[in-house]
Structure formats: structure tokens, C-alpha cells
């Protein structure tokens, strides 16, 4: 069965979306090796059924909390067909930080722009079309607690599943040049071939201990590569 993962910050209405997508067909278990709850369910749209996994609510993919590590490992290793990124429309800047990192991981992202009503009362006017164009991602505005936009979300997931695309957004030139240098070395030396090379490069630059361990590289080596 096709796999869909739900990712997003804490308190964005992720579990409401999860319930709306999966209805009564849910199963609660634990992530392997830890006591963190794992919720799975099945969602049906038209002729397909897909498995929906609720990832823990996180702000970032640095692997410094158990939750972050779980979410990161799932996306990297299980490679879900679609990642639904639930974004709080009333707090869009902070939420998009996670979105960018999902794209670094080459996830096939559909954005669920939730809490549209709250965004409005807070005085935000969001041009969804422009936002979608800028991010190069499909965006579905929703108000999950009122069950608004759920069918549209299912449809967007359905179509995203059929046309997988790798999107990447460029950062500023200076940092892109450095990322590219590292990426080239990684590809040439066949380091972590199962991981997205751009993701590995960025994590090495961030000084991510976990990736250092996996690659057997050190800060000194990275430094040498750059200079």
C-alpha cells in the first residue's frame, strides 16, 4: 500500500487532520525501540487506499530530540510516497522552516494550510496561489476542526502520488556554492548513497553528529573540502 506521512510543528492541528483523513480505521502502537506513540490509519480516495502515518510534532529535523529523530528516520528510510506537511496559517514563517527541511530531504510534499480562519482573525491575508507558486508545491487551505478542505486535501494527495516530483528551493548563492561543493564530493565518493545527497551535505555543514557518525567523516574533512 502507498504510504503517506503527516509532518508538522506541534499544535498545528495535525491529529485533527489525521482523524479526518483516516476516520475510524486507526491503529496505535509504538515507534520501534522507544515509548513514543505511533498512530497509523488508512485513508481512501477514489480507487486507492493509502496508509497514513502520523509523525511526532516537531520544529526541525536536527535529530536532537527523540521526536525529531523518529520523524527524520521515517522520511529518509521509509521514503513515504507523499508527505503532508500541516502548516499553521496563523504562524506561517516558523512553520515553513520545517517545510524547507522536508524539501531538503527530497520528500514529495503537499502542504495542508490549516487554521485559515485563525490566520484571518489575526489579520493575515494569504494569497495561496502565489504561495504555491513560490514554494513550487501544491497547497490545500483547510479548517480542520470544521472539516473544511479535507476532501480537497485527499485529492491533492491522490494526484501528488501519481506525479512524484523532486523539488528543491535554492538558498542564497554563497551557501548554495558551499552546499554544491560538499554534494559533489559525497556523490563522487559514493557516501550514503541511499540518502539524498543535498540533505547529507547540508547536515554535514550544520555539524549534525548523527550524520558524522553515519558517514565516518569529521569536521576537519569538511573544512578541507570547502577550502
Amino acid at each position, binding site marked *: 500500500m502507498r504510504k503517506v506521512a503527516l509532518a508538522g510543528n*506541534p*499544535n498545528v492541528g495535525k491529529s485533527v487532520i489525521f482523524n479526518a483523513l483516516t476516520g475510524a480505521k486507526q491503529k496505535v502502537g509504538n515507534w520501534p525501540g*522507544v*515509548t*513514543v506513540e505511533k498512530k497509523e490509519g488508512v485513508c481512501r480516495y477514489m480507487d486507492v487506499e493509502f496508509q497514513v502515518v502520523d509523525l511526532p510534532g516537531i520544529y526541525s529535523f536536527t535529530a*536532537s*530530540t*527523540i*521526536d525529531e529523530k523518529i520523524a527524520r528516520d521515517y522520511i529518509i528510510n521509509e521514503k513515504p510516497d507523499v508527505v503532508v506537511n500541516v502548516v499553521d496559517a496563523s504562524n*506561517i*514563517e516558523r512553520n*515553513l*522552516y520545517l517545510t*524547507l*527541511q522536508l524539501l531538503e530531504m527530497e520528500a514529495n510534499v503537499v502542504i495542508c494550510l490549516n487554521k485559515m480562519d485563525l490566520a484571518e482573525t*489575526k*489579520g*493575515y*491575508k*494569504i*494569497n*495561496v496561489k*502565489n*504561495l504555491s507558486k*513560490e*514554494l513550487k508545491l501544491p497547497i490545500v487551505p483547510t479548517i480542520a476542526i470544521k472539516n473544511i478542505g479535507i476532501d480537497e486535501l485527499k485529492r491533492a494527495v491522490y494526484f501528488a502520488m501519481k506525479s512524484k516530483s523532486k523539488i528543491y*528551493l*535554492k*538558498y*542564497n548563492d*554563497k*551557501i548554495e556554492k*558551499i552546499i554544491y561543493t560538499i554534494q559533489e564530493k559525497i556523490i563522487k565518493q559514493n557516501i550514503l548513497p541511499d540518502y539524498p545527497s543535498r540533505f547529507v551535505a*547540508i547536515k554535514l*555543514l*550544520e*555539524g549534525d553528529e548523527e550524520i558524522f557518525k553515519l558517514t565516518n567523516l569529521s*569536521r576537519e574533512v*569538511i*573544512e578541507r573540502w*570547502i577550502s
Partner: protein
Amino acid sequence: MDFLDEIVGARYELIDKIVSKSVEKKLKQKTVSDLIDTVVLDKYLGIPIFLTLMWAVFRFAFDVSQCFSDAIASLFSIASNWAKLNIPCKVLASLVGDGVFGGLGFILVYLPPIIFVFVALGILEDTGYLPRAAFVMDRAMTKIGLHGKSFIPMLLGFGCNVPAILATRTIKGDVDRKISIIINPLMSCSARLPVYVLFAGVFFAGYEGAVIVSMYILGIVLAAIMATIVRRAFFSEELSPFLMEMPDFSMPSMRSVLSGAWLRTQIFLKKAATILFAGAMVMWYLTHFPWSATAGGKLIGNSYAALIGHVVEPLIRPLGLNWKAGVALLSGFMAKELVVGTFGLLYSGNVCAGIRHDFNPVTALAMMAITLIYLPCLGTVGVLKSELGEWKWVGFVVLYELVLAYVVAGLIVCFGRVM
């Protein structure tokens, strides 16, 4: 070399660019929520408001629940007498009358205050006040050089330490998480509440709310002290900065408050039917056997419980506590509700009078403080092991709690003598 800052900066730079092209922000005046925040998060008003609200919670729970508790108490007392008169087999009559209705029943007397605390805390949680309370307390702790950070997720879990410890997984950094887990048992859970209610009701009539709140605050302060000690002693790692999210204030929805309280009550009832029932049976056996020596529970001084109690008595004698308190505290290891359940058995039928005889206001406070601190219950030990990983750390928690309980109770008694 570290490009972390540059990469984070680059991400936000891009986000800024994207958002500026697609999101317009109309200037809005301050929301009501912001206005409330300027008051409840105020530098000087923050703490008094927090204390007042907590006091109101317990005062409310105590006052409103009293009539329900009295009703339950008389109901069980009637049931107990009926069972003892009408069941022909003496042992069975005592088992039902003393063990079930007297022991377990005496725990259930405290169900109403527990429920009302759940409701009141649920209202505070639903309005969005609890994270603010955590923030205000943290600020105060940091100011006096203590690391309050670690108990922030726990303030949200006054209900029970087990889910609160599981909630620490959202804490960044292994060290911070470990410290949070280690100090968590000091947060006063609902199972300790019956002890507070019982003793505050007998010795501090009229001031129950204040006395009960002081126990919760004591727990928080001790947690901050322990967090600081543990960090300095074992980890020598600097505090990492952290962000806290404050949801907007909102009107509490009665439905979610009540359903939350009901869920927690169900958990309590399930516990009552299983571990508390079993615990009450064990304590009934220990307080009524050997059957002939105790004359069917009339001479509790000859029971196994007394035998065990006298072993620990020398330890707690300096604190002004006798063997009955010792037995009650030992039973609390299974589940802290059993402390009052055991008192129900030891002072069969007349707990208030018995307590008034064996304790005074000072030793009552010491007893409450010990109940707060002395040991994590069995369920908490289990989750401590699963979350901390090593028995060594679990042992450390048990040890520091025992020592701390003794020290704090000792200070209370010394102070009481001077006064």
C-alpha cells in the same frame, strides 16, 4: 567552522522572500489575549496571580467536594457495618467490611476532590493559562539561580507522573531530558492529594487550600533545586536556550474540560478496581492477621503490619511519626492512594480521631511532605526504568527522594519545635 548559523539564516531569508510575496499582514490592534498576557506574565504580578489561582483551584476542589466525600464516607460506613453484621463467616465479614469498604472505600472518599481538581486544572489548561504558569515559575526559578526549565512540561501533568515522564520526550537534548525525568517524581500527582486533604482537613480547618497549595509549591521548588544539583554534579553542561509556545487565551469549552476530567477519572477508577483493590486486600491481611492474635482485627498492635511497622519505626521516630505512619508509607510504594487506604484500616472506622491522636499540626505537615517526596510509586519506577534506561539512575532517584524526604520532614519538625 560551523555553517549552522548560515544555513538557518539562509532558510529564513528564503522564507521571508516567499512570505513577502504571498502574505499580507494587516496591522491589528492588540487582541484580548495579548492584554491578558501583559497582566498574568507581569514581572511582579505573575507569581501572586499564579499562587492565587492555584489556591483557588484547591479551595474550590475542597469545598465543593466535601459534601460528596461525606456522603461516600457514610455510605461505606453503613455498608461496612452491614457486612460485618450480616456475613456469618467472621473472616469474610472482616474482609468485606474492613478490607473492601473500610480500606478501599476510604480511598474512594477522596475521589470527589480528585475529580474537582481535574476539572479546575482542566479549565486552567483549556484557557491556555498553564503554559503561562510554567513560564512565570521558570522565570522566578532562574532568577534565584535554579534551572526551572526542566519542569515546564511537568506542570502540565499534575495528574500523574507516568504520562508526565513520557511527555519529556519533547525536550531537546539528552541531558535536559534526563534531568526532567529525574526530578519529575517531585511533582505532586493526584494520588498524593488524598493524604493532603485528609491531614489538612483534620489539622488546618479553614486553611486547607493554602496548605495543599504549599505542598505543590514545595514540590516545584524542590524539583528546581534538585535539577540544579543534578546538573552541576553529573553533567556540567550549560543550559541550552529554549523557546516556549504560548497558545492564545480562549474560553474553556465545558465539553473538553469535562471529557478530560472524565477520562482521568476513568483511569483512576480502573486503578481502584485493580492495583488499589489488590493493595487494600494485602493491607487488610497484614493488619488483621494472625487472626487469633489480633482478635479479628481488634488488636492491630499484634498484627503482621505492626511487626513490619515496628521495624521501620526507629527510622521515623525522630520525625515524630509512629509505626502506623510507617506502615501507611510502606504501602504507598504500590500506589500512593494506599496511604490513606491503610490509615482507613489502621484506625478502622474512626480515622480522623485516630489521626488527631497520633499526629499534631507539625507532624501532619511532615507526613504530607514525606508523602510528596519519599518514593516514586511502582508505576513511576517502571516508566523511570524505560525512559532512563539504566537501573543506576532509577536507584539514584529512589535514593535522593528518600534522603530529601527525610531532610525536609526533619526541617519541618525542627522548625515546628522552635516555634
